[in-house]
């Protein structure tokens, strides 16, 4: 993975750029000392590191607008950053770029229970939204595993998911509005407390745009009333196929569980060793199924799921009998990453989505790849929606191991696309999967997507080098191909 070569002219003007930024954000809001900059050198994708030219931490929409206007004038690139928990390198700094951190946008502006929404600044963490509304028994549904640390602005940028998006949707399905600043400094509002934004759905297009389209300065999200009860089940199987079958039958019978997670033997072992979660060690696949809703419904569905599980040959089945036990069932799955961290010095987290019924085939081929590359892989899987998280175990201290792990990861993602899936279910493309975009999209597909960027950011200064493998100038993207066009197309029926 290569980033675009830094512009030496910009680097030579660093002092001037810093003083322009200091004029906008006074005090400690501009960070330029090397020691302090190192805090920002990477995000959750720690394999790639780069010191930013300078970091700026504005406190108001006006400051964000002034910074972007100044950077546009100076031709300086800008990389937006929330909490830096992203897993695909979307917030990886540029040597010739300003990293713009939203960490000071921490206010909860308005909680409106009647309209089931909360208006917050982008630096508020995902979990803090739920915390702010839980005394009224409300919560914010999308729950990425980093929710204690990750910010809602970053969630919007990445279209973050989580365990419960099977039933409640991703960020994009729970977002009502944003205020955002465009690269030229213009401030726009999309949506609000009403349910659909009206006109072209720019709100939908901005969600998951990985910081390439604008800087979000305010977010309105939908909050939901907590379900009356939640119950979790552990269901184990002798084969991965039987586990996959169980998932298909549950969905096929019309049940949409709050969450339905699956893990393979290596993952089960790692998690159970890390924390006692009641997981059986003698199964090949384990499902954690959560049913939520009114008590009468949950009781009824638990019985139905039990019947289905038994019909496909489950060898282990336990239903949580208390809130404590439900939490215990989740403990292992929630600590998937640290558990795997315990059995391997390093690991890569992959994030493809596949049509569910292709799972057994994908897992089999992944095992073969594991042998070919000589690297172990543990699988956790948002089984209900087909989102696969293979964790590739490697040792960064072994020369060549990272390269091998990355090649293995690429092969897995290519496999996902080959069976009808996609490169990323919830972690984003960033720099990590950028060079694989061609597996899914044609040149024309990608150019059309980049024309959207041109509409938001004519000079291509916002987070360049991310998501798209080839940088095109907007003028070039605007050129029209000349088609033959004079033919009377004899094949088309005309009336």
């Amino acid at each position, binding site marked *: 993975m290569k980033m675009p070569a830094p512009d030496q002219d910009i680097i030579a003007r660093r002092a001037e750029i810093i003083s322009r930024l200091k004029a906008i954000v006074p005090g400690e809001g501009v960070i330029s000392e090397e020691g302090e900059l190192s805090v920002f050198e990477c995000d959750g994708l720690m394999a790639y590191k780069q010191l930013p030219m300078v970091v700026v931490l504005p406190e108001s929409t006006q400051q964000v607008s002034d910074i972007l206007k100044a950077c546009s004038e100076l031709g300086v690139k800008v990389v937006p950053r929330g909490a830096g928990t992203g897993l695909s390198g979307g917030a990886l700094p540029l040597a010739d770029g300003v990293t713009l951190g939203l960490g000071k946008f921490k206010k909860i502006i308005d909680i409106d229970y009647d309209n089931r929404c909360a208006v917050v600044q982008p630096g508020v963490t995902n979990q803090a939204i739920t915390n702010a509304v839980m005394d009224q028994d409300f919560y914010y549904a999308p729950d990425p595993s980093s929710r204690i640390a990750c910010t809602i602005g970053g969630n919007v940028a990445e279209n973050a998911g989580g365990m419960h998006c099977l039933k409640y949707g991703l960020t994009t399905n729970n977002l009502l509005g944003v205020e955002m600043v465009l690269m030229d400094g213009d401030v726009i509002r999309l949506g609000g407390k*009403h349910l659909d934004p009206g006109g072209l759905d720019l709100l939908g297009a901005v969600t998951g745009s990985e910081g390439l389209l604008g800087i979000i300065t305010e977010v309105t999200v939908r909050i939901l009333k907590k379900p009356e009860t939640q119950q979790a089940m552990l269901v184990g199987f002798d084969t991965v196929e039987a586990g996959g079958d169980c998932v298909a039958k549950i*969905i096929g019978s019309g049940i949409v569980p709050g969450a339905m997670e699956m893990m393979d033997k290596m993952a089960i072992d790692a998690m159970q060793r890390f924390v006692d979660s009641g997981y059986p060690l003698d199964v090949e696949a384990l499902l954690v199924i959560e049913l939520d809703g009114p008590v009468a419904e949950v009781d009824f569905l638990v019985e139905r799921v039990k019947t289905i599980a038994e019909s496909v040959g489950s060898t282990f089945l336990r239903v949580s009998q208390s809130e404590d036990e439900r939490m215990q069932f989740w403990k292992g799955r929630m600590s998937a990453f640290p558990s795997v961290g315990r059995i391997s010095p390093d690991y890569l987290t992959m994030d493809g989505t596949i049509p569910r019924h292709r799972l057994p085939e994908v897992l089999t081929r992944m095992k073969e790849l594991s042998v070919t590359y000589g690297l172990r892989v543990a699988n956790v899987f948002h089984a209900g929606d087909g989102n696969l998280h293979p964790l590739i175990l490697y040792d960064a201290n072994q020369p060549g191991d990272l390269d091998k792990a990355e090649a293995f990861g690429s092969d897995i993602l290519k496999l996902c696309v080959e069976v009808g899936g996609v490169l*990323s279910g919830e972690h984003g493309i960033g720099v990590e999967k950028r060079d694989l975009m061609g597996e899914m999209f044609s040149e024309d597909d990608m150019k059309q997507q980049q024309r959207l960027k*041109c509409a938001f950011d004519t000079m291509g200064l916002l987070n360049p080098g991310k998501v798209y493998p080839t940088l095109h100038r907007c003028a070039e993207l605007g050129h029209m191909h000349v088609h033959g066009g004079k033919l009377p197309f004899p094949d088309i029926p005309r*009336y």
Partner: protein
Amino acid sequence: MVEIFKPETEAQVLEAVQWAVSNKNALEIIGQGTKRGLGCPVVAKAVLEMSAVSGITLYEPEELVMTARAGTPIAEVEAALDDANQMLAFEPWSPKYMYGCEGGTVGGVFAANLSGPRRPLVGAARDHMLGFQAISGRGERFKSGGRVVKNVTGFDLTKLMAGSMGTLGVMTEVSFKVLPKPEKSRTVLLIGATFAHRAMIAAQCSSYEVSAVAHLPHDIAGRSSVDYVKNAGRDVTAVRIEGPAPSVTVRCQALRDVLAPLGVSVEELHSSNTQTLWAEIRDLSYFTDKKQIWRLSVTPSEGQALAEALAGEYILDWAGGLIWLALDPSDDAQASRVRGAFTNGHATCMRAADDVRARIDVFQPHAAALAALDGRVRAGFDPHGLLNPGRMGGG
């Protein structure tokens, strides 16, 4: 003379659009043409009719996904789903009462982002659309999204295409999420709510997972074909509950307890009456075809007061967040009065004569910076403004 092209394959669609691009001829893009009354009237030299690019290409009920060519009749899609006891959960409305046309295509449903009463629970058409294939106004094939629910690969052009009324590209194929039909549906009716908006909020914000909340003022309720509603003699607030039978029974009772103190009395509708009532609300069967109709998407708690202030016939859906307003015909459909009545939200003139729609902003005008951005986005897809020019205004 307006020429009509009726391609049967994607390759022919591509050819037709490339012809239009080369000759800078505008195209009106239609499916079956059932919703031509929506948006500004389009003036174009040729019509591209997509209804022959038809057929379901993939349906995997256990994966909850379907892919269909854009011109597939929506009735064909719904029949296939019916067979597997599944549905389009966002409840697209039929243009039957609105435009006097039955039918429509699946491409048209997504291009217009039609969503019905279940929208607050499950999302709009845009939330169910997973991916598409299209031809841009540059005469190039492009796609976005896929056939899986969880996908953040590249910009989400799928959302942008939903509701773009054929102005960004000619969709040739769409993939979308489908859901199992609920086992059981019932409706709790609150008759004579003291404060309808309070009752709607109480239902919507309860933990009983209601699947729709609407309000019919007494004169409108009198036009229902469901006796309990028709003969209520007062305003009727309706709350739908869906799910497995034991759950529905318990939740209905709980909601009756919540709602009873908020009005004169409560009633309960069983399956077939529930189906009839919500089809009426979804398709808007209550207004005579003389009326001009507005659709206002507003802050839900403000909906009722706003609707009353607008002094026309109305019903409220989406727990107050959606106002269907019917006004006596006028030259400007009272556009400035309607839009002057609220600050947050937007209003679309859904039905008025062609000359009226040509005269007013059918869609809510944007603030300057957003309008400029909107224009640049459109230019990226259709630089010469050849696809349904002006249909969404600003043309």
